[in-house]
């Protein structure tokens, strides 16, 4: 609209409006410099703010995943070192057993070997009951109760006094109440033990926790297991459980027990029969190999966790970069903007000085 004349007051009012805008702009630019943020309220840039909120969420979630990976990695590392410890004990057991096999008639020697192996049985169980923090490492899903217990079981063999020879056998518990012999041939017990050994404790590590089905509320039955990581380490898997086809235990502690019993039996009968001992020793070596394999698996899991950790830490860096780019000002640009708006405001003030003083009346005689 073209205006042919304008009132003096309107000139002043328009000037004030302009000056006010210029002042506000310089304030906004100053706050941007001081806060280092591109904007202070969502309404200044809702789309960018929404993006920033998403990035923040991802950043915090990524930190959670890093914590989880570190926690699980420590757990697995500790489990692996306990397994290695068990391995070392078993090396000793193996050499003791070989001694016993090579010197089947020396009664005193075999007696000593028997009791040494029994002690090493205790040591293996102690390692299998190792804790990480306040959690038992090898209980599988059970972390609150020591998973293994060594009990003296009566055997069918009598000693010289006619008493039954006792054998140290391994028992497993999932709840601190019910204990199961790991070598109990009862199929029900075996299937229960298998369930305990297979139990998984899943942890979310940012692989996109996923549930199948359409329920709006997640149900464990529908958890897609490759979207999470299993952190459980089962002592049953490490030491073995169940019996082989010939009825021999596959559990390494029980095999040690059986070896000791056979050794003691051999002492009493003085037959010097080494066939049974050799057979048990063979089973022991198989079980020892299984345990080594188990240790290797733990190592592989550890490596995978390290790779995941590296990935998550790279993610963290990238996310941080993104957040900075989305939210933070370019300092040089912000300072330039501020200087410019300051300059504009100063100029506006100067103009005001001339507007306010001049009118035709000043020039009237």
């Amino acid at each position, binding site marked *: *609209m073209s*205006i042919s*004349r*304008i*009132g*003096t*007051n*309107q000139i002043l*009012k*328009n000037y004030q409006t302009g000056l006010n805008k210029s002042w506000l702009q310089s304030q906004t630019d100053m706050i941007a410099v001081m*806060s280092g*943020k591109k904007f*202070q*309220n*969502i*309404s*200044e840039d*809702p789309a960018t*703010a*929404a993006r920033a*909120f998403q990035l*923040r*969420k991802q950043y*915090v*979630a990524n*930190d*959670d995943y890093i*914590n*989880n990976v570190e*926690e*699980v990695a420590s*757990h697995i590392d500790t489990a692996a070192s306990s397994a290695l410890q068990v391995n070392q004990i078993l090396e000793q057991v193996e050499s003791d057993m070989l001694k016993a096999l090579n010197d089947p008639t020396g009664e005193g020697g075999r007696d000593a070997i028997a009791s040494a192996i029994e002690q090493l049985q205790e040591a293996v169980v102690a390692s299998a009951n190792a804790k990480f*923090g*306040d*959690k038992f490492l090898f*209980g599988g*899903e*059970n*972390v*609150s*109760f020591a998973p293994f217990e060594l009990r003296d079981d009566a055997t069918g063999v009598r000693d010289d006094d006619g008493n039954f020879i006792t054998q140290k056998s391994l028992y497993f518990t999932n*709840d601190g109440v019910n204990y199961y012999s790991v070598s109990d041939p009862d199929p029900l017990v075996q299937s229960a033990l298998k369930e305990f050994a297979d*139990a998984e*404790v*899943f*942890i*979310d590590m940012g692989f996109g*926790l996923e*549930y199948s089905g359409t329920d*709006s*509320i*997640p*149900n*464990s039955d529908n*958890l897609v297991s490759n979207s999470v990581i299993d952190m*459980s380490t089962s002592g049953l898997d490490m030491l073995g459980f169940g019996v082989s086809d010939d009825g021999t235990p596959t559990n390494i502690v029980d095999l040690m027990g059986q070896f000791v019993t056979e050794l003691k039996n051999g002492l009493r009968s003085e037959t010097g029969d080494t066939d049974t001992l050799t057979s048990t020793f063979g089973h022991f070596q198989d079980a020892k190999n299984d345990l080594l394999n188990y240790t290797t698996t733990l190592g592989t899991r550890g490596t995978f966790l390290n790779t995941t950790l590296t990935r998550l830490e790279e993610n963290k860096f990238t996310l941080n970069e993104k957040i900075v780019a989305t939210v933070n000002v370019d300092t040089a640009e912000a300072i330039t903007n501020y200087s410019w708006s300051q300059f504009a405001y100063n100029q506006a003030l100067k103009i005001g000085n001339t507007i306010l003083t001049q*009118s*035709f*009346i000043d020039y*009237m005689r």
Partner: protein
Amino acid sequence: MMRPTFAGFTTAQFGMSTAMNSLNITGQNISNISTVGYTRQAADQISMNLTNPNGAYSIGFGALTTSTSQLRDPYLDIRFRTEIASVGENEVIYNTLTDLESIFDEFAKVGVQEALTDLMSSFQDYSSNVNSAEFQEMIKASSDSLVKLINEYTNQLDTVRSDTVDGLTDVDIPNVNDILSRIGELTQSIETTAVIASTPLELLDQRNLLIDELASYLPIKVTYVATDVQPGVTIDRLHIELVNTEGENYTLVDGPVAGSFNTYTDEDTGDQIITYTAGIGENMLTGTGISVLNNALEKLNAANTSLEAINQAISDNAGDTKAVATLLNEKLDYLSYRDGLLEQINAFLPIEVTDTGNDTVSIAFTPMTLNTDGSVKDPIAIDLTTGDDVFTLDTDGSLLLSGANIMDELTSGELTFSSGSIKGSLDMLNSYGDAVSQKGLRYYEAQLDEFAITIAEVFNQMNNVGDPVYVKTASGAIAYELAYEPILDGAGDPVLDETGRPMYYDEEYEAQTGTPAVPVWATDPVTGAGLVNDDGTAQQATRTTLVYEPLLDDDGNIVYVMDGDDIALDQYGNRIYYTDATATDFSGTEPTPMAKDLFSFDPADPSGTLRIAENWKTGLYTVSASQYEGAASGANDNILNFIGALEGSHAFETYMPDHEGGALLSGFTGSFYDYFTNIATTVGLETKTTYQSLENYIILVADIADSKSSVSGVNLDEEGMNLIQYQSAYSAAARLMTTLDEALETLLNMGRVGR
């Protein structure tokens, strides 16, 4: 006819006079340069020419200032008032939205979003440490901060609401009413002055300023209607109408008569309602107005033409409605000749009586004839066959017309507005924010409520899995439930047996064998009637055994079975409580597992009352780590579920209230975090959009103000030039006089020539 010799002097005098008038007006303009609302004035000047019909030439007799007028463009006034209403509306909405934004905007503050990520981190930490109580406590603490923040946001929303209501009811509406009444008073002064003298320009300025102010509150239409106020005197009477959305207009100001707005909260819907009461005379319909009216009616009584007489006359002619209508009109007409009483009444109550047949007459009111929907209000029909009085006085002295209160008849229903700051406030308070309406407070209140309901429902459902939890007795056994009320004496205290234990009715109200130390008669717990045995004798209440003693908490209070927030009742209405009876010695009610809810809320105000469930807080149960019963101590599958629920999508839906049809209002599918971010960005977007329209309207109004100023504003340069111009004119007129004087001098000295 010859031109008189001295006519030139008069011309010079007129010239000086008009120049002086113009100088005075210039002075008035300059001195009012800072007066708000001042309109530039100018002298209306004419050239006088008393034409000589016979003369061969025609010379005028100078100039004359006929009047002073304002330089004003009515079209610009209309445009300004239309646009300023939009500024008012957007300004109120923008201000309220900024308040809302400061609640939901978590860009620079710690709030619900962080509480949600904290909660997630607590669950993540817990997932690998489910046997550790401290990680449990962290989840509880994070949940507690979350619900407290939700409560806090709800409180802040309530504060914004009450501030907005206060702003409307205590500031805006009283302000509008004040403006209306001041416009009425100014108009009265303007009309009075206009009749006896000229138009008072300064009063017009004041009134225009008030009308401009009024226009920022409401959409108005201002017209000037030529009205005869006295024989031969016509003035342009100010008429202001409220333009409502239905296109029907309410008269706000008619000359000196102005109405007023009322506001109240609808108890059913919670809506803030605005109604309008039409002005009915020199006094508005206030206490004063009513008392003036009643005084007039008392005078009617004194004049022996009482209401009773009118009512009697109507009653006498019952059955002949035409006659009654005629009679009523005649009576009312007749009154106009008596002390102008009817005029006084009509000033308040312009009425017209019509025979509608069927033994009824109807009385129509003219000032206020519109319903809420803008339709014309039906006249009050009076059934003459009932014999009821047509006019009566109510107990408080106000006039009732056939049972209808005049006040009510003059008051409109709920008003809706098309623009203005009142509309802005109403939109923010009443709108639900569906596709066609402003997203106001209710929208965000509903969003917060939905957030609270969803998080409580999802988490509660997820936690009610795994091992059941029972209330335990002191010995650690599961506490069984009993519905037996202790027997109370007349004072409401439990009746004790000989060993000092409270006595109870047993389940079947069987008569007790033996004689209790204190005989207590069994009564029906529902009707209170005494129970009788088969032989007709009064039945005694049975004392239960010790195992039925109620379970007491640490403070010695009975522990009741809860049903939500209320004590659970059995079929007889008796309260159910836990006993310290154990399963072996108690054969009664099976115990029910406790609900393991994590959150609780009152459905009447979900977000304001969202809390950590009391039993979780006190540690009766914890977060269920596994969804399976008898799971091992390290089983964490349900914690994964919680993580999944926090990460995963939920359907958030809000609905219109039932009285508005209950349609879907908003739907969002996403995580809790996304939902909350969505609320925040919605406020941000709304604020931004409103700010942009506000800016646009402000620029538009500033443009119109510039245009107005180009017509009406005082410009010092111009006035300076006017000073020179009128001063020169004055000097020139004075010079004319001295020139004429010299000419006359020459003429008068002619006789001496040649002497």
